[in-house]
């Protein structure tokens, strides 16, 4: 799997290269600034890009802008965005062009090595990986939503994990229940929220995120 990296901090860059290489991925270029990154993304069209939000030259949101622009030029380009902090505003901007092949995670998630590598692979395969922090902010925003209040605590847990982009198997493993139990919860959630139940995992995430982002 070919990866383009956008990270300017040497420590983190080296760490990420080592980590990804150890899991059999090939880092074809590690760009250190916004313009460089955009150019590399468009030129290499990698299987996945791992991008830090804050990059030179302005040290503002160069990385995010480069990622969004690259996805505009190369539709469906899988991008995993990392940041020291998460903002719903940024999540929204990233998702504006579809949630397929999109990740938005706190940087510290790399400490859960296998979880992080799974997220990279899921994004490369066209899936979604949204940080639990973003999801919990989204849910907090719906604190007064009467429809959500009708969900049981368990169904809320499942909803949160779904919004993070996890598969049925992933949710089942996380909650230590059977996959069958998970799909039953999911059925109930979609019924209660009045959403159309899609078979495809990805479209399901989309439906949930769209609901929460409204």
């Amino acid at each position, binding site marked *: 799997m070919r990866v383009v990296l956008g990270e300017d901090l040497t420590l983190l860059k080296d760490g990420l290269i080592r980590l990804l290489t150890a899991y059999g991925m090939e880092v074809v270029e590690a760009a250190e600034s916004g313009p460089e990154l955009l150019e590399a993304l468009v030129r290499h069209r990698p299987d996945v890009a791992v991008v830090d*939000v804050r990059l030179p030259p302005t040290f*503002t949101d160069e990385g995010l802008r480069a990622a969004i622009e690259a996805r505009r030029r190369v539709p469906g380009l899988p991008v995993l965005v990392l940041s*020291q*902090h998460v*903002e719903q505003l*940024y999540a*929204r901007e990233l998702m504006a062009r579809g949630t397929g092949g999109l990740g938005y995670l706190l940087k*510290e998630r790399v400490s859960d090595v296998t979880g992080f590598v799974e997220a990279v692979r899921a994004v490369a395969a066209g899936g979604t990986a949204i940080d639990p922090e973003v999801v919990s902010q989204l849910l907090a*925003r719906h604190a007064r939503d009467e429809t959500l209040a009708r969900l049981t605590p368990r169904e809320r847990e499942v909803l949160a994990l779904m919004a993070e982009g996890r598969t049925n198997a992933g949710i089942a493993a996380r909650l230590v229940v059977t996959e069958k139990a998970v799909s039953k919860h999911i059925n109930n959630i979609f019924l209660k929220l009045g959403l159309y139940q899609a078979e495809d995992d990805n479209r399901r995430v989309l439906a949930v995120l769209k609901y929460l982002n409204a």
Partner: protein
Amino acid sequence: MDAHDVGRMARRTAITCARGLSRAVLAPLEGIPLFVLSLAALVTLPVLAGLWLVPKVLLGVRAVADRQRARAMEWSDVVIEPPGRPRPLKATNGPIGRIRCCAWLLGDPATWRDLLWMLVGAPAGAVLAAPAFAVVIGIGALFGAESPHGAGTELLYLALLPAGIIGGPWLLKGHAVFSGFLLAPTRKELEARLTRVTESRSETVDASAAELRRIERDLHDGAQARIVSFSLSVGLAEQMVRDDPDRALELLAEARASSGQALAELRTLVRGIHPPVLAERGLGGAIEALALTVPIPVDVHLDLPARLPEPVESAVYFAVAEALANVVKHSGADRASVQAEYADGRLVAMVSDNGAGGAGPLSGGGLCGIERRMTAFDGTMAVTSPPGGPTMVTMELPCELSLAKI
């Protein structure tokens, strides 16, 4: 003195004469009608039409006075301080805004002194025509024009030329200084302004010292403690990795958990000091991001042409955050809106909701904090919150645009 110097002197004299003449003609032309109009507007105040007329006319008076202040600086390097009373919020339009504007204008001694200047400025301006006449007569005498007052006075007329050339700029300067007597704030006003600034400065210093203490405590009890526990777990794991690999693994997992908690605490802390999104997107983006985290729908309307100075962005961001937190906590509103616009060197931000109203700046409350943040920048805060709502918190402060782009 060569031809070059002569040319420069001639040009300077021409400019001085033109300025003097223009003042002599225009001062009565703008001053007298404005004075009369002002009196007329004030008479209409009891029949309410004045509420509309008075601000219009008196702001016109102030604009003319402001021009004279600027001219004193430009023509004669005489500094005339502008009047210092904080202007009421432009954003509050409607009858309440008009009443407030009238109250401000009528209550500000500067208005009355400006008005007096409209009257006094007319004869004072007429004097400024003198250099032009002196120079014209002097030149006439130089080229042998006959004196109407008979022989012997030619020399006197000739002397008018250097008098006009040398005295002209001094006369303009004298005029500027004289206008300063009426147009500059009185000593009492300056002292009041100084007291205001001193008070808000010491409040700001106190507040930022308290803020630093809080940050120190948070770091000490939070992230630092977590990192200590992190290195402790790693150290123990190192000891055990050979004899008891399972226990070592457990310790490493604990270490990872501590590092995660330390990072989460640092993130919260950083958000409270200077939110990263503010650094990345400026005030506009940060307000949009903030609006997305509030559990009720917030309409955001922003008109900010460029980045503002960082301290201003930070103060206004936290003030808006505080106001929105109040909306969520106390108002019971199901909708809120944030507006911010920058025009004429002033930033106006407004947070309103459709809640229960009845909000007021309790001491030590959130609104007080907002007021303190605003006074530190010579800004103002106003709350209108009749019982039953709606509530509107308006903040306004003067600032320059920063050169950085959005």
